């Protein structure tokens, strides 16, 4: 009886349910991905799947594997920031599909200041954060004052920011290519410091404090949402803006503030990637980076919990990076994106699966437990049961 009770509380625990649901989603994602590979070319399917799952473990030598592990982490940091951005807005009742756009203006601000004005890294970092935040706040203001659905506003702003950033960064691009100049030669002071972290990853020079900062951001978001008065207000506004107003909260300001913070997170994410020097921005880009959209899947895969997001972001980056090791002789080069997209797609079913688990647990297990508990209930309620 005791044991059953314990099991019941484990199974009805939100975290446990989310974790199992995530595993189920990943399993189905992998399965369907594998089937697609089989359809295209049965011969290499097993090997290709293995490559995706192995990612950096693909390299037999531990030093090399460690170095590539570092690179995966470097790319996980910005994804995690986008995930947190989506998650934070979602928890406060808003769907921030504009994380990509906020990320893009973050890139623009960071690189422009770094390359044009030779600013040090921390200035670029803060600028990226504010740029993202302001773009988010713009969508929030449209929602608060003009009742424009934030999804629509965000999608519009995504395009707006892409072309604006392309235009602005065009001024600091390399002469011969469409890419922005490499920071390492143009302005090393704009590169994020390593603080010795690179030593842990076979001297991978792209590993910087960004990965630590992203982890801290996850903790920060969790504390902000669950432990502070601001989180209390923002969530209340998201759930029921009438009640928030009734309780004297400034509900309009809160919507804007939510989107501002959400945008700040995405903007910071951009600086984490581009100020590590691992990538250069192509000014001929015709779509916003997928980070913000992958962040949506990662947020759900992580059970809508900031700490869960750390793992889900890593997983999604892991398979995305893994995709590049698929044998391009056997499969067309788009295959890696296709497979990771399929897996990411399945990741968005986490909530549904969790709901199904919850229903089953309550129906199957709750029955026994409540019945046995019932017998222990005092008799004062038993009167008048005659029919």
């Amino acid at each position, binding site marked *: 009886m005791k044991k059953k009770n314990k099991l019941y509380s484990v199974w009805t625990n939100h975290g446990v349910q989310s974790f199992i649901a995530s595993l189920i989603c990943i399993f189905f994602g992998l399965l369907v991905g594998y089937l697609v590979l089989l359809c295209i070319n049965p011969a290499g399917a097993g090997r290709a799947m293995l490559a995706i799952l192995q990612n950096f473990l693909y390299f037999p030598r531990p030093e090399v594997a460690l170095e590539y592990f570092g690179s995966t982490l470097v790319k996980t940091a910005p994804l995690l920031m986008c995930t947190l951005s989506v998650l934070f807005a979602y928890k406060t009742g808003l769907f921030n599909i504009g994380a990509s756009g906020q990320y893009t203006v973050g890139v623009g601000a960071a690189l422009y200041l770094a390359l044009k004005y030779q600013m040090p890294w921390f200035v670029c970092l803060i600028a990226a954060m504010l740029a993202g935040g302001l773009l988010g706040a713009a969508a929030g203001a449209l929602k608060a004052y003009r009742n424009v659905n934030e999804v629509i506003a965000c999608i519009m702003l995504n395009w707006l920011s892409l072309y604006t950033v392309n235009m602005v960064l065009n001024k600091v691009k390399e002469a011969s290519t469409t890419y922005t100049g490499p920071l390492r030669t143009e302005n090393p002071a704009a590169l994020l410091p390593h603080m010795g972290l690179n030593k842990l990853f076979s001297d991978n020079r792209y590993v910087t404090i960004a990965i630590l900062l992203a982890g801290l951001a996850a903790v920060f978001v969790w504390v902000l949402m669950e432990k502070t008065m601001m989180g209390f207000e923002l969530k209340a506004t998201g759930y029921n803006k009438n009640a928030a107003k009734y309780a*004297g909260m400034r509900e309009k300001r809160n919507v804007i503030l939510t989107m501002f913070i959400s945008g700040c997170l995405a903007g910071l994410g951009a600086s984490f990637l581009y100020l590590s020097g691992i990538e250069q921005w192509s000014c001929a880009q015709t779509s916003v980076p997928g980070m913000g959209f992958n962040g949506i899947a990662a947020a759900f895969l992580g059970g809508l919990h900031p700490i869960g997001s750390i793992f889900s972001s890593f997983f999604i980056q892991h398979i995305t990076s893994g995709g590049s090791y698929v044998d391009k002789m056997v499969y067309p080069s788009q295959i890696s994106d296709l497979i990771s997209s399929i897996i990411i797609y399945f990741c968005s079913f986490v909530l549904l699966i969790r709901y199904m688990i919850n229903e089953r647990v309550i129906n199957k297990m709750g029955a026994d437990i409540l019945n046995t508990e*019932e017998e222990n209930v005092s008799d004062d309620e038993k009167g008048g049961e005659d029919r």
Partner: protein
Amino acid sequence: MDNYAIEMRHITKRFPGIIANDDITLQLKKGEIHALLGENGAGKSTLMSVLFGLYQPEEGEIYKDGRKVEIHNPNDANALGIGMVHQHFKLVECFSVLDNIILGVEPTKAGFLKKDEARKKVMELSEKYHLMVDPDALIEDITVGMQQRTEILKMLYRDNEILIFDEPTAVLSIQEIHELMQIMKDLAREGKSILFISHKLNEIMEVSDRCTVLRKGKYVGTVNTADTTPEALSSMMVGRDVSFKVEKGKANPGKVILDVRNMCVAGKHGKKDVVSNVNFQVRSGEIVCIAGIDGNGQSELIYGLSGLEHLKSGTIVLNGKDVSSEPIRQRSVLGTSHIPEDRHKYGMVLDYSLENNMVLQEYFTPEFITSFGFLKQASIRKFAKRLIKEYDVRSSQGPITIARTMSGGNQQKAVIAREIDKDPRLLIAVQPTRGVDVGAIEFIHKQLIAQRDAGKAVLLVSLELDEVMNVSDRILVMYEGELVGEFDPEKVTVEELGLYMTGARRQEVKTDEEKE
């Protein structure tokens, strides 16, 4: 054996932490009005939701006309001719009344909406059953009373034969309730079978043929209404005797706490003022009640007082301070408590836990917040536990219960607990006993009077004349946005009030100075 229109056999429905329905059997005869009675949280709405396909029971079977049926969702229920008016309305806020009524069963021709026919049918039903609605008004603009009528029309429009009314009278005025009772009788005479939930025993005595009582999820018994009394029913339901008359001493009015001058609130969409030129005072130690038929500006008057709506003109003085243009938070801090008429729209954050809802008006005070802006979770828990205990707020998991899963009456009790415990100078209570059981009504009335005796100014808005007459010290009647009469409850009759409420008569309402 004759077949029942509906027979629910041995229904058991569980939620985490609670058995909402425990082996309940309910038999509904054809053409009868069957009342369902029970305390808040007894499991009435849950049982009806099972019948309507919103919940799947873990155990039990449902029979219709002697045939076993499976009801997996509301569509199944509709197909079987089962319709339900929910305790908390399920209407689309930004749709018109007509659109809400026909939603899901829109008449179409070649894929195009044919609203004219629908409108005709709706207007006929509205005429036939005296359910007055404005088919083109948006739901968000109309009063809860009219929303209620919309819900009823929605059910009638679908030609159902089993009708479930979950607390339909909670927000209606006396006249409307009489009309609804008549409608229900007519419907039953036409051969429809009706399940009717209400906490008002006189209504149950008046319309129902039989009554089934539930207590804490269990079946207590079914009685013929003709063979029972309200007292017997209430003790069957609560397990003790309930007094219906409120004991209260004489009021002892002190200084003016609320002083309203020439207050006007503009109507939506440029219509004429919904509150026009209202003047009145509420003193400490008295309960002033605003009586009137739903939709005569009472709601807007209160929104204006609490700050939810802007005034067009006029002043509100609270305890000597002009608060006419102060924000809501400021008015609250200066001592206004507000029990809102719509607990779901304003009163609660339904997705928050019960404990978070309990501190909704005070979360920012040092009691619950550290100086760095962190929540003091332990204090919140302790505070919520105290209120839950003092006000007997029942839920499945205590302070951490998500408010949405609580029964309607218990949500109401939670709001009341929060607002009264705030220790205000001015307590505004709009329909405070909406949807609570007889035991709780007694308790809430006692609390209102205790507040008065503690020197608070109490402004009560109620559509229920019983409540108006029993609780208040002074009655103001509101008609079409104006105050049209002031009365002493000891010296006025319900009939007389009725004349003023319908606009048949009016008098000048004087301010205190004018009286002297």
